[in-house]
């Protein structure tokens, strides 16, 4: 190695493929996840580009109808189940949860490794389903289309989703047990970083929700494989029952995707403004409220599905209520900046992008939860725009921010700051150009999952495609310069941002046991005590 005097850390303590594939070190497992997830994101992104290219013209010249249908299905399945759901929890959460609470590892290290393998096996099933012909049901697998009508590889794909579900369950279980039983002495609940609260809330959803999607896709698989009727209307079965089961998980799942991002944002905003978070208790409690109330609103995906009007009223009402804790978070983050000492580093730019785009995405969620409006915009591009604002503009933005923020900790290297800022700005602009036109398209009435569309929608679609190509470039940049930094980046030092979290009290990259000496436990955001000074030469 080029640096022979380097102290033993988790990266150089052992070499060779075996030492990675059989590791039980949560930090190494986090990197294993990072690799898989990046690959899945690239695949999902390539599908997205194909979708956007196809929609450049109204007549659908590029792809066959069937191919298009398979593409958006696989885009959705991969992005949701194999990228976004595992992204922050499995990479950043895995790396940071034990460190932030001053523990040496997660409670069940071997289970942790197992859940990575489970994800890989699930992903392999999905890829197998893809290369042997693909699946065309939409990521929602609605019956009876998925159970009887589709002629594609629904069963392997359902199996992939089923298996991956257990990865998520095991991760959630591990987090819950770790957070309950392994906090360092003196680290009481209300001194925990909000990242931990967010991951705790996420884990609760994973535990209570994921088993239901597992059994649901299993039922579809069984119905298809053995030709038994479960949701089959020909036997008096109820296709809408499938939708209930599906959304019972899949609505809470959107909070699996956003809560960890919110945890990341709380860390970034405090660190780069050197402020205690504004309203700690409110931000912490809102995570739990979102997790619990998030389970009571699933029917808002079914307002025109033939669900009873009575149920629609209840679900609409509760959807409004569940938006409030999110609003509370946004306001508290904003207030945190007030009278801070704000640095414009790249992670902070990503965080600001998150707050803005999440606000728009979330508020358009209110449109959708409003009954009279959803009847019109359901299954149109308005919905597509809504969820990309939250998932791409929000969740991925936070994931990027978190990755940049903890990259020095994970790798021991700094990345080139200026390119990172430019990447952030390119992503922000490309994103808005891609998805803002889709709100207009949706209200004009362009249905989603359409491979050909009426001419009058073309202008907006062209804008959207143009934006997507900028966005694609934006995502390629970090891929390049982060990889570059692994070898050429300057050494980071233990605490390049002057952050207060326990993870910053240990060298970067951390030693295998995380801490060489017991970390000094204090309140999560003690920025106003001068205990975590900015390092020598930090940008002022």
């Amino acid at each position, binding site marked *: 190695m080029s640096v022979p005097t380097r102290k033993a850390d988790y990266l150089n303590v052992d070499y060779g493929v075996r030492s990675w594939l059989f590791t039980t070190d949560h930090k190494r497992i986090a990197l294993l996840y990072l690799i898989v997830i990046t690959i899945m994101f690239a695949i999902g992104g390539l599908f997205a580009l194909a979708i956007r290219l196809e929609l450049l013209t109204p007549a659908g010249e590029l792809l066959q109808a069937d191919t298009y249908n398979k593409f958006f299905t696989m885009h959705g399945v991969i992005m949701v189940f194999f990228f976004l759901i595992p992204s922050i929890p499995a990479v950043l959460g895995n790396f940071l949860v034990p460190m932030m609470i001053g523990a040496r590892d997660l409670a069940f290290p071997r289970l942790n490794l197992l859940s990575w393998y489970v994800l890989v096996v699930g992903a392999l099933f999905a890829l197998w389903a893809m290369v042997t012909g693909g699946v065309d049901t939409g990521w929602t697998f609605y019956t009876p289309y998925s159970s009887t009508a589709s002629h594609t590889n629904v069963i392997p794909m359902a199996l992939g989703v089923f298996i991956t579900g257990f990865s998520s369950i095991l991760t959630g279980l591990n987090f819950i047990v770790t957070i*309950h039983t392994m906090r360092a002495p003196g680290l009481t609940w209300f001194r925990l970083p909000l990242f931990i609260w967010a991951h705790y809330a996420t884990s609760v959803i994973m535990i*209570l929700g994921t088993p*239901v999607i597992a059994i649901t896709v299993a039922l579809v698989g069984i119905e298809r494989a053995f030709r038994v009727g479960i949701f089959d209307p020909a036997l008096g079965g*109820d296709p*809408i*029952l499938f939708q*209930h089961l599906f959304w*019972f998980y899949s609505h809470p799942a959107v909070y699996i995707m956003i809560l960890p991002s919110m945890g990341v944002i709380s860390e970034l905003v405090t660190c780069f403004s050197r402020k205690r978070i504004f309203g700690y208790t409110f931000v912490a409690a809102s995570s739990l409220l979102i997790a619990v109330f998030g*389970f*009571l609103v*699933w*029917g808002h995906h*079914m307002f025109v599905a*033939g*669900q*009873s*009007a*009575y*149920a629609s009223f*209840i*679900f609409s009402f509760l959807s409004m209520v569940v938006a409030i804790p999110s609003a509370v978070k946004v306001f508290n983050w904003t207030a945190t900046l007030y009278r801070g000492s704000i640095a414009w580093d790249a992670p902070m730019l990503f965080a600001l992008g998150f707050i803005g785009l999440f606000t728009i995405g979330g508020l358009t969620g209110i449109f959708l939860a409003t009954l009279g409006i959803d009847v019109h915009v359901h299954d149109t591009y308005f919905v597509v725009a809504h969820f990309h604002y939250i998932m791409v503009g929000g969740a991925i933005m936070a994931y990027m921010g978190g990755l940049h923020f903890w990259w020095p900790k994970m790798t021991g290297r700094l990345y080139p700051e200026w390119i990172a800022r430019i990447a952030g700005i390119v992503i922000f602009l490309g994103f808005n150009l891609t998805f803002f036109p889709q709100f207009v398209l949706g209200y004009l009435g362009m249905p989603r999952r359409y491979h050909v569309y009426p001419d009058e929608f073309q202008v907006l679609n062209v804008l959207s495609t143009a934006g997507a190509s900028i966005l694609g470039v934006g995502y390629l940049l970090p891929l390049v310069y982060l990889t570059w930094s692994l070898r050429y980046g300057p050494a980071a030092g233990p605490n390049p941002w002057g952050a207060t979290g326990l993870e910053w009290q240990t060298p970067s990259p951390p030693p295998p046991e995380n801490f060489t000496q017991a970390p000094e436990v204090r309140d999560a955001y003690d920025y106003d005590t001068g205990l975590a000074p900015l390092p020598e030469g930090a940008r002022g």
Partner: protein
Amino acid sequence: MTHGVASPRVCLTIWALLLLFTAITVVVAGIDLGVMNVVVMLAIAVTKALLVILYFMDVRDAPQLTRIVVASGFAWFVLLVAFTMADVLTRG
């Protein structure tokens, strides 16, 4: 480490109770009580489940946290059923 493990005597008593309840539920099932059949059957099943949870699974002197975990499991199942039935039973 003593985690209140149920003694053989307690175990046998609970076992006998469980068998008794099984007998009752089979007998009651043969009598027509209208809707009450379902109610009685479920009440008995819940009682039996509670006996198993409290004694065989030693929740009676488990930490508070364990109780919360157990309760939330069942609560969430009830929630799933309740909200779905709110639709199914009110469809026109």
